[in-house]
């Protein structure tokens, strides 16, 4: 993570200046919020003084982290400042009658400064690290199917950058934790193979290029191992190998396995499968062992599980008439909460927000969802169809 931070910092460093001695980092009130999936009331804030890109960024970032924008008299917190030239801003707790933050930002872009301010607001109110300065990777297809390319952008879709140019079918990008590097599937060599791609050198190498299917790479949280779907044994199953492709081992033997994801401690792999004629989510020890089936009652046909970095939740896609995003507690204490229409959920580093894709006509757009308030916003629109987002962690 340090390496990623420094690399990002080198690209665009935001310099923060405290405007007032009254705002000290140690006097932070943690907003007491009872967080229920899909039912949490947003925290009401009022925004004043921001007019341009700064206002747009603040509204996006705070909406998808559980805040709602209301008139000043209905607000609990007041956010005021300016985005003329550089971002300056303050945050006031109206009830406690106290200024929690008063800062100015310079360096990098105005957009980046506004994201940094949003992160400071989130931290001051919730005590959680904000997502404003994080990155995602995804695939984009001009026709909605067929050939596409892998892209990297800010989490809100801004500053999108194409990082492949193969004119091939691509799938399922996954970040190497703490590194500017991706794993993804590409048909560039006329077979679905998994590649590693350094985003600092551009160097690529094959990780899995066995006969048949090689896809759905998922990187272990410490970056040392890759789980994926291979069909080299004659059926599509979950396999695990070292980050460089060595030490390959088959760990599932179901008829219909897909989409592996790691528990944050690296000890389990959750995946989609079929059991007793029903589509199920299951987990298996990462080194192989007995498969345990998870209770997803109320969310039929689960696929695409993604385990949250804090270990509490598994997000997945349920196929009813449409596709729906669902989140369930890992400990099985509750059945899944069905949140919004969409597919391909990927958790933010702070385990509060999901990036996913949803249908707009016959194409897919990326969107960001706060799982507690169910508030979501679409990412900056790209041409074609964008899907399979992966949040950098």
């Amino acid at each position, binding site marked *: 993570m340090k390496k990623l931070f420094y690399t990002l910092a080198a*690209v665009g460093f935001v310099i923060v200046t405290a405007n007032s001695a009254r705002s000290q980092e140690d006097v932070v009130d943690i907003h007491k919020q009872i967080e229920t999936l899909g039912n949490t009331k947003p925290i009401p804030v009022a925004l004043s003084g921001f007019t341009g890109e700064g206002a747009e960024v603040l509204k996006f970032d705070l909406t998808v982290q559980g805040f709602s924008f209301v008139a000043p008299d209905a607000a609990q917190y007041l956010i005021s400042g300016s985005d003329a030239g550089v971002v300056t801003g303050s945050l006031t707790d109206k009830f406690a009658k106290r200024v929690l933050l008063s800062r100015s930002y310079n360096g990098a872009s105005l957009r980046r400064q506004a994201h940094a301010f949003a992160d400071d607001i989130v931290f001051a109110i919730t005590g959680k690290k904000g997502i404003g300065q994080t990155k995602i990777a995804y695939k984009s297809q001009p*026709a909605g*199917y*067929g050939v596409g390319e892998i892209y*990297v952008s800010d989490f809100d879709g801004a500053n999108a*950058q*194409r*990082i*492949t*140019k*193969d004119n091939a079918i691509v*799938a399922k990008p996954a970040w190497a934790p703490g590194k500017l590097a991706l794993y993804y599937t590409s048909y*560039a*060599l006329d*077979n*679905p193979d998994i*590649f590693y*791609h*350094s*985003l*600092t*050198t*551009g*160097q*690529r*190498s*094959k*990780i899995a*290029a*066995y*006969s*048949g*299917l090689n*896809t*759905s790479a998922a990187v272990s949280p410490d970056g040392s191992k890759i789980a994926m*779907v291979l*069909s*080299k*044994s*004659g*059926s*599509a199953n979950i396999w695990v190998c070292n980050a*460089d*492709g*060595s030490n*390959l081992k088959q760990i599932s033997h179901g*008829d*219909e396995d*897909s*989409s592996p994801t790691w528990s944050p401690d690296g000890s389990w792999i959750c995946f*989609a499968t079929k059991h*007793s*004629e029903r589509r199920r989510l299951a987990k298996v020890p990462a080194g192989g062992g007995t498969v345990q089936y998870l*209770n997803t009652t109320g969310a039929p046909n689960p*696929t695409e599980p993604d385990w949250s970095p804090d270990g509490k939740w598994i997000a997945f896609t349920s*196929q009813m008439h449409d596709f729906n995003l669902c989140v369930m507690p890992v400990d099985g204490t509750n059945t899944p909460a069905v949140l919004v229409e969409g*597919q*391909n959920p990927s958790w933010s580093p702070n385990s509060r927000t999901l990036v996913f894709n949803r249908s707009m006509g*016959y194409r897919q757009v990326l969107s960001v969802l706060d799982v507690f308030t169910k508030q979501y916003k679409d990412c900056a629109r790209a041409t074609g169809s964008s*899907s399979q987002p992966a949040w950098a962690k």
Partner: protein
Amino acid sequence: MKMNQIVFPLALALAATLATTGCKHTPMKVTPIYGSQAPNVGGENGGPTIGGGGVMGGDGGGTGINTSQGGGNTTGLDEFEGMIKDPAALAAHTIHFAFDSAAIKKSEDSNVSAVASALSGSANDKLLIEGNCDERGTEEYNRALGERRALAAREALAKRGVSPDRIRTISYGKDKPTDPGHDDAAWSKNRRADFILLHPKP
């Protein structure tokens, strides 16, 4: 505990039903794929085998992939490398599948037999089976489903005496629809396995 109490009698009932109807689930026969080779591991030591990716902050795109670099191993398909694709030869024998199913329907028997006899009649030819799905179903699920369809077709051919070593499979998931429409007619056409005859290089 409550769950077990409900599920167990259900499981018993189901088992009893299956036993009396004789409709038991036979595990899919699995034939390992010929030529599954280890990938080129550790590109940084062994030299890159795929070149020219983009970098962040760069111009956003690299050059194409250079397969000849670093030994240029194929994707585990050496036996098939350089063969000429003949998509027309068996185009009439594309087989179709039920929704979310990789089972070969009885009605496809004649197509499978036709493909088998085409292969038995030309010992130097090989076969590429392309598995495809309709657009209903999540992306990676469908990528696995397409592979299951291609593998099921391969097993059906193996039962008719075709050596599985002559067959390569590829799944396109929902990325290669034959009909880009969004209705039942398009979907039923897209749930398919295409047979591409491979001729040796002349």
